[in-house]
């Protein structure tokens, strides 16, 4: 698959700014994509926003951005062209106010790139154009039709929070108050980061799937390996809604495997995986079904960074919500000073 022009070329930034890649972002407007599931974990947003501001970067939020619509595409409720049209609408709105788009959710990230990939298919591209034309006619504007003519050349570039944090890891590390000493960390990438095939046949910055492990080491934590590291969280594009009893077997298998190696917590870069692996109702159901009470804690990378940076207790409250034993982890980390 050819390279997606929308993806920020991190390799190039590393080459051009070998000493401090952060320099590339100075003076640029960084927009944070509003992932629906951040609602349940406001610390995911807070963690990255607060970090960027502390590093002197300009953060913007796009009022006109909608849900990426991935959930509806995955459920066959909208067509590929409709999915791409929703994507182009979002990208254009964001392009108007920002240079770089940071994404905290694997699902949204994959949708944004996939919507663009679909436009390589002439039939989908034509239909998308038709939809945007109809939209302009209906709204009595000429906005999206005009922008679509040049869609492949918009300046906006997107980057996953994990890739971004990894890129500027040394600057992040300088800003930490605490570390992960004494903690055994298991990592989970999530399918829509781990299994991306955009990097399958070529060398891109996406190829390296050891970024979480390297960050754990950088933050002084001990990495623990577990047999189901690459297994899906169980969400499975709503399998947990359609076939809950079966899908929970996957969630159970994953959590149990991390608990077996006595992981202090599972670190991940996606709020959808976090929702699946943490939701108290799911944990209760697992206990009921498998007669096993699982207590392994779970946390998003952005939340962890906020804790490590020593963010105010009240701001950290949201970080602790909905996550089993996260209070304990929080206390261990903040007593590590």
């Amino acid at each position, binding site marked *: *698959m050819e390279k997606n022009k929308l993806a920020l070329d991190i390799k190039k930034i590393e080459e051009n700014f070998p000493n401090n890649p952060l320099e590339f972002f100075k003076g640029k407007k960084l927009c944070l994509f*509003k992932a*629906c*599931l*951040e*609602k*349940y974990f*406001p610390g995911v*947003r807070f963690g990255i926003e607060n970090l960027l501001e502390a590093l002197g970067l300009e953060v913007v*939020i796009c*009022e*006109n951005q*909608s*849900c990426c*619509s991935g*959930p*509806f*595409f*995955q*459920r*066959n*409720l*909208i*067509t590929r062209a*409709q999915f791409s*049209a*929703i994507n182009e*609408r979002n990208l254009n709105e964001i392009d108007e106010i920002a240079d770089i788009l940071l994404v905290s959710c694997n699902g949204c990230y994959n949708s944004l790139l996939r919507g663009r990939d679909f436009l*390589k*298919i002439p*039939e*989908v591209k034509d239909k998308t154009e038709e*939809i945007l034309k*109809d*939209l302009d006619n*209906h*709204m009595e504007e000429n906005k999206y039709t005009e922008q679509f003519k040049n869609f492949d050349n918009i300046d906006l570039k997107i980057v996953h929070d994990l890739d971004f944090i990894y890129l500027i890891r040394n600057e992040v590390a300088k800003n930490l108050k605490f570390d992960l000493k004494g903690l055994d960390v298991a990592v989970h990438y999530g*399918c*829509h980061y*781990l*299994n*991306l*095939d955009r990097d*399958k046949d070529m060398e891109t910055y996406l190829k390296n799937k050891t970024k979480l492990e390297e960050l754990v080491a950088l933050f002084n934590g001990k990495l623990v390996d577990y047999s189901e590291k*690459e*297994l*899906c969280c169980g*969400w*499975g*594009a*709503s*399998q947990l*809604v*359609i*076939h809950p009893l*079966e*899908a929970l*077997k*996957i969630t159970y*298998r994953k959590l149990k495997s991390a608990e077996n190696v006595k992981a202090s917590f599972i670190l991940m870069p996606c709020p959808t995986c976090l929702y699946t692996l943490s939701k108290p109702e799911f944990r209760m159901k697992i206990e009921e079904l498998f007669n096993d009470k699982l207590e392994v804690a779970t946390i998003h990378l952005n939340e962890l960074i906020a804790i490590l940076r020593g963010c105010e207790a009240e701001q950290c409250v949201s970080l602790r919500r909905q996550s089993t034993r996260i209070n304990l982890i929080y206390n261990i980390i903040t007593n590590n000073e």
Partner: protein
Amino acid sequence: MHESSDENWNYNFLKRLVDDVDENRNLLQCIDCGRCVGECPATKISKFNIRKIIRQILRGDKTVLKESDIWYCFLCERCKRVCPRTGINIPILILNLRNESFKKGYGPRYDDLTKYFEMAERFLTSGFVVNNPLDGILPEKRVKELDRICNFARIKYIFDAKYHHPIKLREIFEHKKKKNKEYRDKNGEK
């Protein structure tokens, strides 16, 4: 595909499924190695077997559209990652199969569809799939744009599936719109 001889292959069904999807141009080059099955979460919890499904497609066996198996795929893309071939994209193939199944009126089960009702309704009235999203809902004009883009899409027919009654549906929409307007007035949308 060792269980099929050239005689019982039938490309018409395959053609319909992959015709406009460049990512599946090489489905015929599947070497039946089974790596996709070995790492598939759906296979761990159900009768779902993607190799069997590919064989059915290559034989033109449309009963696959009626079977519940195709609704078990997690769309996790693991198979795509481990497949030694390029040009085989199973999750997209599964979505196309489900589309065909929808068109024929087979699946998913009615109950399954209604589970999407609330998220579809939230998307078309507020722009997000969750209630009270972190940054508030989308401005009204933008919601209208989404609604227009989704014209004639299946997302709009779930409403009927849930309530069986178009008038009731309109009432729900109106009620939701009123609530969103109150929210916007309160939160000072420009």
